[in-house]
């Protein structure tokens, strides 16, 4: 959610970025000791409006990790790296029309939807080449067993499941 005005990186803008990053970080800092689990870093970065690919995320994590990885990321290391990312407006989210076209590629028959089975196939086969964060079971389950609508203009619906997701 970085705005155009902040491109000049004035002190005020940087200070505001710092506060925003701190807020996002603190919400996942369960122990209130300025650290977060490394597995939540992706979520934090994405919540700040950035959409890095898996590889880019991997690199970012490497930058903020300790010399000897502890499984935790400290705020002192996270802050400067994330501030740069926001200032440089890196990893911008994909525009909606590109996203729509991506769906259209997978739906050559132009039905306007993808079935559960097709999505599973594409996500696991095609996308499995992207390493590091395997699609967890719950990710997939949510993806496949959830009916959703994308944005206002895109009307891609999944077939309703009606499955009783085991709590």
């Amino acid at each position, binding site marked *: 959610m970085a705005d155009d005005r902040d491109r000049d990186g004035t002190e005020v803008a940087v200070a505001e970025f710092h506060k925003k990053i701190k*807020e996002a970080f603190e919400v*996942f800092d369960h*122990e209130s*000791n300025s650290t977060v689990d490394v597995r939540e870093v992706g979520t934090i970065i*994405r919540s700040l409006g950035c959409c890095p690919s898996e590889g880019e995320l991997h690199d970012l994590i490497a930058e903020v990790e300790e010399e000897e990885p502890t499984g935790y990321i400290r705020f002192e290391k996270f802050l400067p790296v994330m501030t740069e990312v926001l200032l440089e407006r890196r990893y911008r989210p*994909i525009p909606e029309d590109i996203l729509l076209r991506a769906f259209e590629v997978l739906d050559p028959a132009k039905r306007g939807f993808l079935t559960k089975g097709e999505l599973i196939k*594409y996500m696991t086969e*095609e996308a499995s080449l992207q390493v590091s964060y395997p699609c967890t079971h719950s990710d997939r389950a*949510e993806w496949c067993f959830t009916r959703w609508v994308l944005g206002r203009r895109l009307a891609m619906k999944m077939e309703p*499941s009606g499955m009783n997701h085991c709590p």
Partner: protein
Amino acid sequence: MGCGTSSATEDKKSEKALKAALVIQNWYRGYRARLKTRQRYALTIFQSIEYADEQGQLQLSKFFSFMLENYTRVQEKEPGLVTRLFGSSIQDKDRQDYLGLLEVPDSYCGPRLQFPLTFTDIDLLIEAFKQQQILHAYYVLEVLFETKRVLQQMPNFTHTRTSPSKEITICGDLHGKLDDLFLIFYKNGLPSASNPYVFNGDFVDRGKNSMEILMILFVSFLVYPNDLHLNRGNHEDFMMNMRYGFTKEILHKYKLHGKKILQILEEVYTWLPIGTIIDNEVLVIHGGISESTDLNLLHRLERNKMRSVLMPPIPMDGDCAEKKNKLGTTSLLGIRTSGSFSEQLTKQEWEQVVDILWSDPRGKRGCYPNTNRGGGCYFGPDVTAKILNKYHLKMLVRSHECKPDGYEICHDGKVITIFSASNYYEEGSNRGAYIRMSYGTTPRFFQYQITRATCFRPLYQRVNAIESSAIRMLKERMISRKTDLTRAFQLQDRNKSGKLSMGQWAFSMENVLGLNLPWRSLSSHLVTTDKDGNIDYMSGFQDVHIQKPVKEVQSTLIETVYRYRSDLQIIFNIIDSDHSGLISMEEFRCMWKLFKSHYSVHIDDSQFDELAERMDLNKDGSIDFNEFLKAFYVVHKFDKLNKSDNKLA
């Protein structure tokens, strides 16, 4: 059309499909992350507000202490008030006094218990409660008396042993959520000699079936006193119940005999054990520990003297003892809070118990006062290690804090938090969990989440629901501090533009409300921002207002009463010792005066008098305070429902 071209096309197609899939995956992960973050923000809001409320208790507790310590002065000014306030209507009545005249009519078609109780009675109760029947007051009282009698024989800490063939199950807070208890029994089996349980406090308040949970637990305890262990939680406290809903539930379900039930319950609570020790290794207590926790002291003290966290022991001096002799039996010292010297715990003992019931573990080393809650402390991993070593224990199992997954492990695996009320804040807010363990094996966790629907709504809908619920609560907070917030905003708004920068707005919000929340991220839900990124600070109050019960009265007064309504409710409930729901105008007025001075509320007395006059609808000199407080509710502009009194305990 040859093989060559078609395979090239195939490759190209496949590459395109891969790229498309990656784009979608990338987008989805971002979408998912944003949902997760919104969910976390909502939980943070719920939690901060919950703890801020508990902190408010500290002030109330100080108010009561102030009243007790200044008894003579207060007595002189308003004779009878303090006695009325703290005068005990509890004498040591026996069973006959309560049950003697009570009968279960033939027309009663609810469950009928048979004493001595057996496992059939447990089944009976469960079946009946599933059909939403209400247990007759006669049986409730019988169960309470029996429970008190049996508990009195138990030590402060229950010691129990497990074996590979006899695992024990530990459950955390239930808070009146009967469905969760049913689910636990369904998944894990009913309590029995071969299926022991520990219920780690906070059985009541907030949920709407606290009474049913209590009855099931107490009856199970009476049937299996050596295999069903109950620990006291911070909500097993008659004053907490006044604020958080159990008192209201009882008076609603038992209109005729609720008063009696409340009286006995108060005592039963004090006899609940402080904790359970399993295999001499695992300490199970509701809250936590402090660096000065002394298990030997805790084993020895007389636990039944701990009546409420809001009634700390008052310092005794010669002066007070004098008064006792002068004023006779209805003196300060003959009352429910303290009684004579020997009827109180020492300050040190009392603090030890509060620490056990209220403390929270944190990552920071050391031990600090728990300012969030206003009682107990925050204890670090070093404190855990020190205390566990001191008493040759291996692990601490506690509850008291809601965790998104129902449980959490911290302090190097030495502290486990177990919380068994799923959807505690709101449908979809968190899972519940329980632990199964036995000596020498790793504890196993079982999670669950109750849902009304037969299948889960999509994640985004669930997140929307808890988010809007959290934002509502936050807005109600804001409106209750409107005057203070407006003043703070205007102080920073030098050129009276009606706007502040994000930083300025966030600063004021945090300062005035005292809630450590991600204000920048929440701002889009609370206020309108212009294209320059500046905030129209008064827009936060637009969709919400407190219903004015009386037009002529100033908003500051309305705001104040709304803000302190929970505290006032407790105070009124205590004055109204016969639970009639009415107090006299005189009492109402002088209570307000005392409250005002202690809480440093600056409101003209005449304003208040005016309000009180108008609220005395039948002009008979008495005020129905429940009606009075109900009149102060917040209206959300886009609400279909009018009353939001679900937050009124």
